């Protein structure tokens, strides 16, 4: 059985376990968007990155696809990991600001400012729907088409696939379209005050400002907000 060290704790796991599973076994919270226990690990959302040290070198690797090997030394919340996650989440909020899941994650990681123009895309291409359709529903009715920026989930060549049973598993598993924040203007809402009162206000872009007037979260006193932000994260450092 491979023995590895996660955040200084030695842990022995069964062969075939991933680092993500090992960390979760220890109760360490690692955020994910594309991972689901019943599906093949995909490694696309990159939020589960952990810092893996190997001799003098260390590297960020996705925990969901990294096999828990003997002698691995893993840090799940090092400064480098936290900074990478914050910047990733900033980009996520800018891409899909209307998703409550993403807002909450960003909020949890102390992302209070988004410097990029919001895009309001519906899909983050985590591939959960594609995998559940193929692996659990045994249908394979949808897949990815096109490349890069134009890549999207669709049925081959046609909008409706013959083998789609309309079971709704794809909708069920989607991490971004579930539970939108129900504000006055759900599409442009960026206030995650309903979760923890630490909103990710887009002060850079007027048209994406928090719609609540007055903002519930912003009206609250500072100390209370700080207490509720979890885990406490320092602002990003400058690159060396």
């Amino acid at each position, binding site marked *: 059985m491979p023995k590895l060290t996660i955040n200084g704790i030695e842990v022995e796991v069964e062969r075939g376990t991933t680092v993500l599973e090992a960390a979760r076994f220890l109760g360490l919270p690692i955020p994910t968007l594309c991972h689901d226990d019943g599906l093949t690990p995909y490694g696309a959302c990159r939020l589960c*990155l952990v810092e893996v040290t190997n001799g003098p070198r260390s590297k960020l690797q996705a925990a969901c696809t990294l096999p828990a090997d003997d002698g691995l030394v893993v840090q799940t919340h090092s400064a480098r990991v936290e900074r990478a996650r914050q910047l990733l989440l900033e980009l996520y909020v800018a891409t899909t600001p209307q998703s409550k899941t993403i807002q909450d994650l960003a909020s949890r990681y102390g992302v209070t400012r988004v410097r990029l123009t919001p895009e309001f895309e519906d899909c*983050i291409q985590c591939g959960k729907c594609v995998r559940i359709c193929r692996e659990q529903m045994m249908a394979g009715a949808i897949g990815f088409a096109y*490349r890069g*920026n134009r*890549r999207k989930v669709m049925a081959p060549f046609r909008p409706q696939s013959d083998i789609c049973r309309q079971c709704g598993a794809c909708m069920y598993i989607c991490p971004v379209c579930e539970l939108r924040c129900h504000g006055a203007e759900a599409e442009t809402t960026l206030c995650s005050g309903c979760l923890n009162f630490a909103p990710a206000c887009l002060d850079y872009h007027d048209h994406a400002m928090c719609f609540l007037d007055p903002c519930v979260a912003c009206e609250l006193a500072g100390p209370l907000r700080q207490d509720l932000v979890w885990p406490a994260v320092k602002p990003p450092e400058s690159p060396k």
Partner: protein
Amino acid sequence: MPRLQSLEDLEARRAACVGARDPAKPCLALCAGSGCTASGAPEVLAALRESLERAGLEGAVELKSTGCHGFCEKGPVMLTWPEGTFYNQVAARDAKEIVASVSNGRRPVERLLYRDPTSGERVQREEDVPFYRFQQRVLFGNNGRIDPKNIDDYLGVGGYAALGKALTGSTPEQVVDWVKRAGLRGRGGAGFPTGKKWEVMRAQPATPKYLICNADEGDPGAFMDRSLLEGNPHSVIEGMIIGAFALGAREGYIYVRAEYPLAVEHFRVALAQAEECGLLGESILGSGLDFRIRLVQGAGAFVCGEETALIASIEGHVGEPLPRPPFPAQKGLWGKPTVINNVKTWASVPVIVNRGPEWYAAIGTTGSKGTMVFSLVGKINNTGLVEVPMGITLREMIYKIGGGIPNGRALKAVQIGGPSGGCIPASLIDLPIDYEALTEAGSMMGSGGMVVMDETNCMVDVARYFMEFLEEESCGKCFPCRKGTQRMREILTRISQGQGAEDDLKLLEDLGWMVRETSLCGLGQTAPNPVLTTLRYFRDEYLAHVRERRCPAKVCKQLITYSIEPTLCDGCHACVHVCTTEAILGEKKAAHTIDAAKCIKCGACLEVCQPKAVLVT
């Protein structure tokens, strides 16, 4: 063609090939690589053939179309054997004269010889041309001598001797050890030690094992692998057969881009010939080694040069990378152990076996052994393919081999390693070219693209161009690469249009750092290099764009204006004729003016203006 059953058969066949050839018989070896073909080699070949026929010399003079000689700038180029006279910029009309010189006492055609641009003197022999003199052509040396479509030519220059040596005189472990001791590192870009990769693969219990030759060369301006496949495909096949012997593989694949039709054609011919001779197939040279190579054509995705995406593509899936580990050497094609190496890596294997690992390891630096092939392009006098020992400095590369920068302009930067390489500034010109030094400078060896830039290149624009390419070529699987490249391109476009803010530079650095650290595969992990290196070395230029709304290199169209200096303008009307938007006003013999509202800043007037009255500010 009889099958070769043993090493003796091979040597007998080689002896027959060499014996059938009179070394004194004149031979005209014309480059028919892609570069020279584009500059007219097929016409020259036809004209040479016709001239030979007219002179009645068809039997007495051999005419050969070979692979790329490397000096594409001066194409079409040719060599005449046995003297080794090097002719450049040959045209069809020169054919008669060349043939005449071959028949009458072999006086070279003076005006077709290479002229040294500094001394003005003509140079007769190829090895005396500065472009070639400082090179060490270990892999490409035979390109100018052999017809890639004729296996006898390859046998005649000692081809397949390394295979014979490996099969009869050594064990698989020994071959792996040679490759390890030679210090060969992967020539595809990342520079992973080949011997180590082979050892990992050998240690895997699973069978069957596979070999792959990665010929999905996609960097803009790079054509090293292409030229090797076009010019000397048997060297790659020989390397793969030796690999099969060392690694216990029975099947190999070569993945070539479909955009390389000539490489595909030549490789197909070479495969068929090798199979016919029994160099591929069952019990190669009677050794009991079975090995076959299949050719797979890529559909043009840059990301398929990444090994896991390439394997997915061969398997018939979408070319998207998979997380590593497991590495292909552990679990690759069809889930089996697979060694995947670049074209040049495979071609280096016979060299190492032939000459010995010590000979190979003596070339280069401590960490980087052997030679590296670069395609030297951009603002450089001698464009072409260059093979140099590792550790050569950029200065030697650009000024000795490359012949310096055209029009007496100053060197600004060198972009090494393809689109995801970094820009090395002119101040680091004495940097030795090896894996470690380049990585330290923020660039990478990559597969060997080398783009030279002078003071007329805007570094913001350069970064924007490469980011546009990478955004287009990102497969889109992982989020940071898909959205990060897009956002960086948007910010760079904004800056180049004079709409950037100083905060954007910090944002670019943050995004670049994040994309590099968090992306799934090598494409994303290296994609920010052009941005991060230009920000590191050319920050002033970015600041000029965002603070002063000025493009110092006068490239970014939104930040420049064209005007005519009335005191210099002689009213010749030349600019008026070339202006497509009728933006230039003025009578003949009187100073002209440019209507800024109509001007599209194409630069046509600047090019035609003799008195240099057109100003760009």
